[in-house]
């Protein structure tokens, strides 16, 4: 502690610059993670945060909601599977909608308002009645307001916005929920002459204490032509999610590696530069452990400060983010990233400790002959 803090204090510029560099890299890590999380929330929030325990897809749809076509008669078959409390239809349509003078994409979900898959929690307004919808709250930033009317194109069907629901966006476009019977009417109006209106999914609630994944497997086994999945599996299985996650993970992984290497090389360079001092200190009785602790204290101080700088920059960046794609500081993410960078940096600092351990204290006397 004695030499660690004094060294930090007397080399403020050097350590300050590295703290800044670590801060920027940590910011990049946090920002990429935040961006990835927000993007995935917008992409599959409607599935991941669905109020149903299990979502049932058409078996050949390969977990693609928009390719899934189910017959309504399957609801009773699924409801009869042991562990299923209730099963309800879910329909999804991606449409063009007009709000005011503007045209926009809209994902319209028809659900049982009181059953599995119901839009909840309502964070503003009230549940929809006939001719009404609730929207995912991210729509507020895009100009959707309670009391406004959405006009579907080309049918001209009008739907009034009466509330907002949390974390239920789908496919990164504005998402609205209405009663399933209303949705069927919209479907028929948009696609006149359709003999049968297919369901996209069947939402299922399971008995308390039962693992939804287990019940999902039972449904898959018991009912021909369907695949029952718990919400997390269904969300992660949505086409495109893997690619997005892998791309971000790769970039985050590379950035993480760079942070750790920067810290490792910095301390290794400093160690080599200060080797004469370390040799002298060892000669007068400083143990390797003492010098290692000093170095690790510096690593901890530097990475912690750098992480605070990174979190601070992220905070500023989120304040300036587009309201339609809001980014926010997730304290848990900051702690996780800081912890991971810190742990890895300490390990990287052991390179320098190893270099110190290899010094021979006799060099303090011998080396200057």
């Amino acid at each position, binding site marked *: 502690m*004695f030499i660690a803090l004094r060294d930090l204090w007397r080399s403020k510029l050097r350590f300050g610059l590295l703290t800044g560099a670590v801060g920027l890299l940590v910011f990049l890590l946090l920002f990429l993670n935040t961006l990835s999380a927000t993007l995935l929330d917008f992409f599959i929030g409607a599935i991941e945060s669905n109020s149903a325990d299990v979502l049932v897809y058409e078996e050949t749809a390969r977990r693609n909601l928009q390719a899934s076509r189910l017959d309504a008669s399957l609801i009773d078959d699924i409801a009869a599977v042991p562990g299923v409390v209730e099963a309800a239809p879910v329909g999804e349509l991606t449409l063009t909608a007009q709000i005011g003078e503007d045209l926009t994409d809209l994902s319209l979900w028809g659900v049982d308002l009181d059953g599995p898959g119901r839009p909840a929690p309502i964070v503003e307004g009230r549940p929809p009645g006939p001719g009404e919808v609730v929207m995912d709250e991210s729509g507020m930033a895009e100009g959707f307001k309670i009391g406004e009317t959405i006009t579907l194109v080309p049918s001209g069907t009008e739907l009034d916005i009466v509330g907002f629901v949390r974390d239920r966006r789908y496919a990164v476009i504005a998402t609205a929920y209405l009663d399933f019977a209303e949705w069927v009417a919209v479907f028929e109006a948009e696609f006149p002459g359709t003999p049968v209106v297919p369901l996209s999914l069947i939402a299922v609630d399971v008995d308390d204490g039962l693992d939804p994944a287990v019940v999902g497997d039972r449904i898959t086994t018991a009912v021909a032509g369907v695949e029952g999945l718990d919400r997390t599996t269904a969300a992660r299985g949505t086409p495109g999610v893997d690619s997005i996650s892998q791309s971000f993970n790769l970039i985050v992984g590379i950035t993480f590696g760079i942070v750790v290497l920067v810290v490792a090389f910095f301390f290794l360079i400093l160690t080599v530069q200060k080797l004469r001092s370390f*040799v002298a*200190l060892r000669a007068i*009785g*400083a143990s390797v452990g003492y010098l290692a602790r000093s170095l690790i204290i510096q690593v901890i101080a530097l990475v912690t400060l750098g992480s605070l700088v990174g979190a601070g920059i992220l905070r500023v960046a989120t304040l300036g983010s587009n309201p339609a794609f809001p980014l926010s500081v997730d304290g848990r993410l900051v702690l996780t990233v800081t912890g991971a960078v810190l742990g890895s940096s300490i390990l990287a600092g052991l390179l320098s400790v190893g270099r110190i351990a290899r010094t021979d204290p*006799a060099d*303090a*006397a*011998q080396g200057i002959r």
Partner: protein
Amino acid sequence: MTAINVDDVTKIYGEGHTAVRALRDASLELRDNEFLALLGPSGSGKTTLLSVIGGLLAPTSGRVTIGDTALAGMSKKEQTRFRANRVGFVFQGFNLVPFLTARENMTVMGSISDAPRSEIEARADQLLDELGLTDRKNNLPEQLSGGERQRVAIGRALVTDPDLILVDEPTASLDTELGTQVVRLLATEIKTRGKAGIMVTHDLRMVEYTDRTVRILDGELLDEA
């Protein structure tokens, strides 16, 4: 009382054809309150002997005893603690820590040795006063003259109140006047505290401040001068 007993010590660097015998059957005894000059030309083995006595180097054969402590058989950790608590080194190149002030270069021993920190700090202030460095105590080594740095190194060697002070060429990078002043100061500090001290030098003018002189040539200790 015998402070240092060097008994038949040999030190060989390297092996086979590259082996260099730096010390040959060296034997030496030093009492408390005795300041000895180890005189010899460059490469004679002075620094090696000093390093062996200070627990920095292990002898190839022979035995070194400091007070009642035999250095042979000590683990690296024990050697480190021994150096921190019982030996005060003044190296030829001062070897001060560049990012610590004059006072901190002394008080750092409070976090290295077993002595209580408060005791080290009080002794550091006393030594700074005795060494005429009070006004320079907050200066970094780079802001100090050669003589001042040497005095800081002496202060660091004394601050733990060690049994043994080992000094390597204290005048090497100083002019005659400053060198004499530093050695006189060193002798005073060692004698005042009743310590045993060995000063390696090749400067004959400095031996008058020591109690006795031992010559070393090609690793062999010769008769006392």
